[in-house]
């Protein structure tokens, strides 16, 4: 590391009024050609570039970002990290990511504020109880920590939840993954950007891709707002805009892009020290280190790229929050926003080659991509470098929509869609 962050560097820089901190990542103009170009400078894209440089010895890499790094869904999600997915393929993928999270601050020499405060999923009816119990068993068979809590144990773990049997959707129990938690979303993008930039990766912001040049079934380079850039490996990690980029190469993807909303309240003193999710009533809540309640709402039902979302979606979520947490009835919401999420028909991601040589897609993360950031980057880097998927992402290929071998996590994965 050029400029290792430590307590000594903190003291040293404090003595000069923090005016001499080195820039964390470079701001280069694009070169004429690269060994690989990553389209999209969010967490997943920057992580991909980082692991390509670190583990696969590719140094001549660029990350193209049409806005600023981490300004898309990386900066818009509710930062929940967990790996309690039902199916083996998903469990492998998300737990790989969770293991990388556990050491990420040390790995990047950047505090990503990973906090294993636990994620609790509530059950509100008998079918929820059966499904969630089944999932805890499936998780434990895959070596993922999961426990079932009855109503009293839920109340003990998170005392502000209303466990009265008289509410519309009473709490009948819940599952808890203690290793799950949250992280600081911006820090993840910045940490990977700094690490990648340090290894020579060019991070080029304000550079939008306008076209993909190909001859026959091979990619030749990218048309961008900063001119043509030659490369024969393109990794697209463009989230909600994946279909737009695919369209440039004449490809169609099994995706629909929809607004997903979140909101934060005014900051208050610590009141909830875990993450609580509820699929049935569609409400999830945690508290940031600044004290804001971070609340996740649902997606709109229609395709849109507006980054807004509808009012009735937020209204539904807040109704559910108020029933479960009457203590929040006088909280004021500070901000609300939307991010455009690319949803696959089976609610699982795509980390895959395509039938065009040198063109790779990492997309379809839908409503839950943040948790996978390190794992997604690591596996996508492997796929790009070797032109073959890693065994952990082999099931997440594009061809599964033809073969029918779907990884159907809809409703099965404690996902609040």
């Amino acid at each position, binding site marked *: 590391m050029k400029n290792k962050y430590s307590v000594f560097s903190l003291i040293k820089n404090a003595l000069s009024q923090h005016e001499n901190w080195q820039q964390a990542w470079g701001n280069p103009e694009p070169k004429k050609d690269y060994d690989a170009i990553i389209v999209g400078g969010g967490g997943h894209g920057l992580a991909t570039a980082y692991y390509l440089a670190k583990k696969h010895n590719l140094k001549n890499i660029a990350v193209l970002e049409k806005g600023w790094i981490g300004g898309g869904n990386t900066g818009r999600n509710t930062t929940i990290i967990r790996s309690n997915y039902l199916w083996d393929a998903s469990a492998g993928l998300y737990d790989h990511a969770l293991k990388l999270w556990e050491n990420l601050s040390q790995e990047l020499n950047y505090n990503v504020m990973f906090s294993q405060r636990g994620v609790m999923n509530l059950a509100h009816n008998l079918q929820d109880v059966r499904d969630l119990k089944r999932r805890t068993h499936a998780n434990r068979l895959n070596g993922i920590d999961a426990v079932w809590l009855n109503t009293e144990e839920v109340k003990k773990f998170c005392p502000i939840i209303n466990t009265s049997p008289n509410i519309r959707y009473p709490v009948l129990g819940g599952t808890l993954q203690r290793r799950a938690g949250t992280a600081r979303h911006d820090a993840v993008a910045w940490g990977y950007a700094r690490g990648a930039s340090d290894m020579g990766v060019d991070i080029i912001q304000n550079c939008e891709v306008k076209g993909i040049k190909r001859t026959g079934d091979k990619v030749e380079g990218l048309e961008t707002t900063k001119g043509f850039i030659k490369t024969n490996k393109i990794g697209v990690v463009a989230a909600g805009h994946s279909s737009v980029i695919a369209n440039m190469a004449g490809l169609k*993807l099994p*995706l629909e892009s929809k607004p997903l909303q979140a909101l934060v309240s005014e900051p208050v003193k610590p009141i909830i020290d875990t993450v609580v999710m509820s699929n049935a009533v569609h409400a999830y809540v945690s508290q940031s280190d600044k004290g804001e309640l971070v609340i996740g709402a649902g997606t709109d039902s229609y*395709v849109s790229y*507006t980054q807004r979302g509808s*009012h009735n979606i937020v209204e539904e979520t807040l109704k559910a929050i108020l029933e479960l947490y009457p203590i929040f009835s006088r909280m004021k919401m500070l901000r609300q926003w939307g991010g455009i999420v690319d949803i696959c028909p089976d609610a699982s991601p795509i980390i895959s080659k395509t039938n065009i040589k040198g063109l790779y897609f990492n997309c379809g993360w839908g409503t839950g991509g943040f948790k996978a950031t390190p794992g997604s980057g690591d596996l996508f880097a492997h796929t790009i470098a070797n032109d073959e998927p890693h065994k952990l992402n082999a099931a997440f290929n594009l061809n599964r929509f033809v073969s029918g071998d779907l990884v159907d996590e809809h409703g099965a994965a404690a996902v609040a869609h």
Partner: protein
Amino acid sequence: MFLINCPFCGVRDQSEFSSGGEAHIVRPKQPTELSDDEWAEYLFMRKNIKGIQFERWNHAHGCRKWFNVVRDTSNDKILSVYKMGEKPPVNYK
């Protein structure tokens, strides 16, 4: 969040409607003849356009009838509404 002019009921809030996704995807006439690729194309692949999209909507909390809408997905502006079976307007590409 926007208003939709239902061709049967008039202007209503979008929350009364349910989205049926991309329009004019023709159901295969002879399903038994289809290859896996063609099935994948029919079932899963979507244009997912950023811009002018032709789509189906259902007035779920109203007359419960289906109809088509031309909408710009980059700003949610509705450009045209037409009934099922009618030819899509030609002035939008």
